[in-house]
């Protein structure tokens, strides 16, 4: 039995993920392309993991620690901001009862944002509890 090396395993994952990406994304309608862009944008914030992994290794000097903290902060902005802003956009697409209902147009641009508590543990960002 042949045991695949780490490199080939990872390359296989890479290629398959590429094909899955093409298939899944091709089904997204034009209407949702802006949320899609911002959602996938949030997903590549996963580089945050890279920062966490490297900062967890021993032997990082002071300068390394500084750039890694910046990297983690950048990654977190990417993830948290990306998912939140996508959630805000998509909330607006939720079908509403036609015409009638309350919520007049007075509710300006920001009021529709999700309501959860947001801060603190941060990763669980899209505030599942909200509405």
């Amino acid at each position, binding site marked *: 039995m042949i045991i695949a090396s*780490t490199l080939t395993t990872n390359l296989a994952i890479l290629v398959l993920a590429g094909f899955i990406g093409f298939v899944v994304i091709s089904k997204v309608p034009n209407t949702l392309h802006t949320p899609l862009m911002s959602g996938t944008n949030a997903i590549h914030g*996963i580089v945050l993991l890279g920062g966490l*992994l490297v900062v967890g290794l021993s032997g990082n000097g002071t300068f390394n620690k500084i750039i890694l903290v910046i990297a983690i902060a950048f990654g977190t902005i990417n993830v948290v901001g990306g998912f939140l802003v996508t959630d805000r956009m998509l909330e607006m697409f939720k079908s509403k009862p036609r015409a009638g209902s309350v919520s007049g147009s007075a509710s300006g641009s920001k009021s529709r944002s999700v309501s959860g508590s947001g801060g603190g543990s941060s990763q669980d960002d899209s505030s599942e509890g909200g509405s």
Partner: protein
Amino acid sequence: MLAIHPPLATSFLQDQSFLDVLYIIAFALFIQGLRGLSGPTTAVRGNRIAAVGMAIAVIATLLNVNEGNWGLIALGIVVGTVVGVPAARQVKMTAMPQMVALFNGVGGGAVFLISWSEFRLTSGFTSTATYITIFSLFAAIVGSVSFWGSNIAFGKLQEVIPGRPITLGSAQQYVNFVLFALAVAAGVDIAGGDHTEAIFIGMLVCAALLGNAVVLPIGGADMPVVISLLNAFTGLSAAATGIALNNPALIVAGMIVGASGSILTNLMATAMNRSIPAIIAGGFGGGGAVEGASGAGEHAGTVRSTSAADAAIQLAYANRVVIVPGYGMAVAQAQHAVRELTKELEKRQVEVSYAIHPVAGRMPGHMNVLLAEADVPYDQLKEMDDANPEFQRTDVSLVIGANDVTNPAAKNTPSSPIYGMPILEVSDSHSVIVIKRSMNPGFAGIENELYYDPKTAMLFGDAKSAVSEITAELAQI
């Protein structure tokens, strides 16, 4: 299944398989989440599923981290949250493209910083497998290009720096090529065994300059395509980081983003009738740089202007009205006014729908977001292919701040720069009302024949006040 490579051996605990399972769950959730984005009803949940996947991936990683560095991790995450949450909450929907650019930029920034720290930690990739070195270097270059390019894109859209193309003229292509070649050469040198940090920094600087040099010459109109392209770049660099760090979640997530970014970039370029290389070459559209207004002079035809009162009467007695919104509507923040107008028309049993061009607004689908924000029901929004056959039985098309996407020249005039671009066939409808600030041409810098069509009436003015006036007039009929 997923063996580990030497540099990480110390940090991975004995339960590697468990962690791998968590990562696999995480990327399965990403894929499931993105599948949810295929429809407006499942999209919110889809995004949240992806967010849960992200949370699982982060927790799995934290299980792995050395005790000593919790303070640093907490610091990074807290700073990121404090910056990211308010930004995401407060950004206006019209400013969404630059927000995406900014988030994309920080992602790219994280990638090249991680790669740099790896370089330092391993004393210049000493005793690191060559393929890991290569993927790290790829991540560093692409991440750096993405970071700087995205920041420039943000600056242009936010109008911190001028939106018009800033070029070095004919030397631009050579400069770009030299910067690219230098960055690659530095990378090859390091992969070949040079451990000098100055070379690595030089590579980052070349990549940074390249990011600036590529995006600065691109006009505001093409910027969303660039953002999408840079989004794909950041995704690919994240995937490369994943291979370097042997992390399957990073590989899958990064690659999916790479794929989606490529698809989106291509779709956008097609919808704008532009090729991606031509966009990268830059110099098109935006600001005052109007290029070759070919055939502009031949329109001796007259423009008929109308008043809000006349427009209101025309609309009130129509059976079917199609609203064609463009970026002009968004900048005037007129979407709520448009919604009020729609309500007023619906009271009179007028059938109203919205025809949305794929690149209306500043990004594909941007207009849908803006209209959804104004509570326009999703089922009234018609995509181009569904909207076009309907124009023939439309009494009045109301074009609000849209220009090039309605230009019949794209169908009729082979010499036009936009010839071949898919358009909304507004001129098929019985009559057309165009709300526009002036006769200035749009981004592409071309005259719009539609305005000279005898059945077209122009209502000059700011989109928001013009629409409000029509609504007020309607109420009095």
